[in-house]
């Protein structure tokens, strides 16, 4: 009786051990889609998207934190609009590409033993940095466009730092995988390059620890790549309308429709900035300071000066951009009145926030269409567009187009 109960318990334990869930192994993924020819192509597209995204992001960073040697040009006026639009768009397109690429190589996550050699350990560590940084950049970028901040850090410096981690990890990954990449890109996508195709219907010998790739589902490898490219295109189409107004009707996931006061969207409102009282005060004055002293201008005095009208885009770091007709006093005229010829300028807003000041390099201050704008579309600025006076300069991020100006200093 006792022996029987003991045996029962033991066999039950054996049964439990047998049935205990075990982690999957790469050999448990039979689909032919888990192939290096697919991974190399999806990886190539993803690498191109990341490279474009990195350099356009770098441009945006150096405009906002310019090194001394950089003379960021005033033209073409649409250049930043283009680079930042491309930055956000390639980032969005990279999301489907990353998901498909990771799905393709996902069996490798379950490699057993987890580490087989020193080189393998380095490779896996670099892949961890690659996947971590790739998801970090794409997700924080996407959430930043949606202005959903589910984190404690300030977005720009951290997104910038991790971008370097991401491209560094991409380069290491390319270095490690270069022979495989060249091999895989050198043959048709349906071929298996790391083992000979089975002849005369013989079972194909499978590398130990890799996907057998024997299962043919309805989706072909070419089809999977088409799916990646197609969903990336659809994601772009669904979001690009806040950069290309003509596509706005079909971009149902764009950050904005393009509507706003005076037909132009607003990023930071006067109420949010806490500037309503200062901006609408009767005794408003714009102070301009230079080597020749300091002068104050009322709004009427600014309106009485020679005005320039120009069509210039607002190009937000979050990707949306829209062109508008601005009228105001050229910044260089105001600077000349205080003896500042050919200098840069610091624009200071009534807004005490993080973006309440911006520096304008001489390349931009001296441009004929860099304006202290007073009108938008021929009528005085809406308070949310920076009434009574704002900076509007060509080829410059919207965050540096300082609104509610109270003071300008030559630098």
């Amino acid at each position, binding site marked *: 009786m006792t022996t029987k109960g003991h045996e029962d318990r033991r066999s039950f334990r054996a049964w439990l051990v047998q049935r205990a869930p075990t982690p999957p192994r790469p050999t448990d993924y039979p689909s032919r889609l888990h192939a290096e020819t697919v991974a190399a192509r999806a990886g190539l597209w993803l690498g191109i998207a990341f490279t474009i995204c990195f350099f356009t992001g770098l441009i945006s960073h150096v405009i906002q934190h310019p090194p001394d040697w950089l003379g960021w040009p005033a033209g073409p006026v649409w250049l930043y609009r283009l680079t930042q639009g491309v930055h956000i768009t390639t980032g969005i397109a990279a999301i*489907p590409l990353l998901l498909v690429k990771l799905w393709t190589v996902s069996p490798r996550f379950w490699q057993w033993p987890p580490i087989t050699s020193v080189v393998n350990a380095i490779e896996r560590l670099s892949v961890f940095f690659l996947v971590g940084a790739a998801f970090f950049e794409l997700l924080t970028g996407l959430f930043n466009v949606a202005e959903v901040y589910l984190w404690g850090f300030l977005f720009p410096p951290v997104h910038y730092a991790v971008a370097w981690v991401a491209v560094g990890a991409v380069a290491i990954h390319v270095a490690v995988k270069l022979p495989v990449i060249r091999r895989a890109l050198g043959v048709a996508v349906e071929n298996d390059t790391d083992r000979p195709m089975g002849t005369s219907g013989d079972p194909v010998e499978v590398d130990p620890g890799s996907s057998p790739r024997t299962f043919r589902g*309805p989706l072909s490898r070419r089809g999977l790549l088409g799916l990646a490219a197609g969903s990336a295109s659809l994601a772009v189409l669904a979001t690009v309308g806040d950069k290309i107004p003509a596509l706005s009707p079909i971009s149902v996931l764009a950050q904005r429709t393009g509507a706003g006061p005076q037909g132009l969207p607003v990023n930071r409102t006067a109420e949010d900035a806490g500037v309503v009282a200062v901006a609408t005060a009767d005794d408003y004055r714009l102070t301009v300071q230079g080597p020749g002293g300091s002068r104050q201008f009322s709004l009427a005095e600014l309106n009485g000066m020679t005005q320039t009208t120009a069509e210039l885009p607002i190009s937000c770091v979050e990707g949306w951009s829209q062109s508008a007709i601005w009228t105001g006093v050229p910044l260089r005229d105001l600077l000349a009145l205080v003896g500042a010829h050919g200098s840069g300028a610091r624009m200071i807003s009534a807004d005490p926030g993080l973006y309440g000041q911006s520096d304008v390099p001489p390349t931009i201050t001296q441009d004929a269409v860099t304006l202290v704008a007073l009108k938008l579309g021929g009528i005085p600025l809406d308070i949310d567009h920076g009434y009574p006076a704002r900076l509007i300069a060509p080829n410059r991020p919207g965050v540096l187009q300082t609104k509610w100006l109270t003071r300008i200093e030559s630098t």
Partner: protein
Amino acid sequence: MTTRHPRGETVLRVAIGGVGVLTLGWGLWLMAHQSLSDLLSAGAWFVGPAVLSDLLLLPIVAVIGAALTRHLHPWVRLPAQVALAVIGILTFIALPFLTGLGKQQDNPSLLNRNYPLGLAVYILLILIVTGGWALRRRRALRPLPGPARHGHPAPDVTW
């Protein structure tokens, strides 16, 4: 495999890898200048999605894919897989907009679209297109009647 690496390729790999190590190191050095609380928050967003993609996202995709397409007839299975994948990816991108967390009361020009409706329209269009594709596949896969076609296998329908 190691026997066939030409020398030039090895030099190239070392060069690319070296640039990669320096670049990655520069990124980590920049990160080291963040405060501890920022680092912890950023660390969660760095490690979390990378680990959850393997342990949560991919298994969910596999289970949904298997549950919804495994027992389907071949003519509808491929369109169904494609429709699910595209809808899934689009919904993934739409999620932060659907939460509405970014809306600001005083700024009606921001996030001023009907995101649930827009996504629903896209999903409907995807279902219509893939549905039409499925019906075409159904016709193509059905053996044609008549003596002229007797014995001919149904055409192999792929992409």
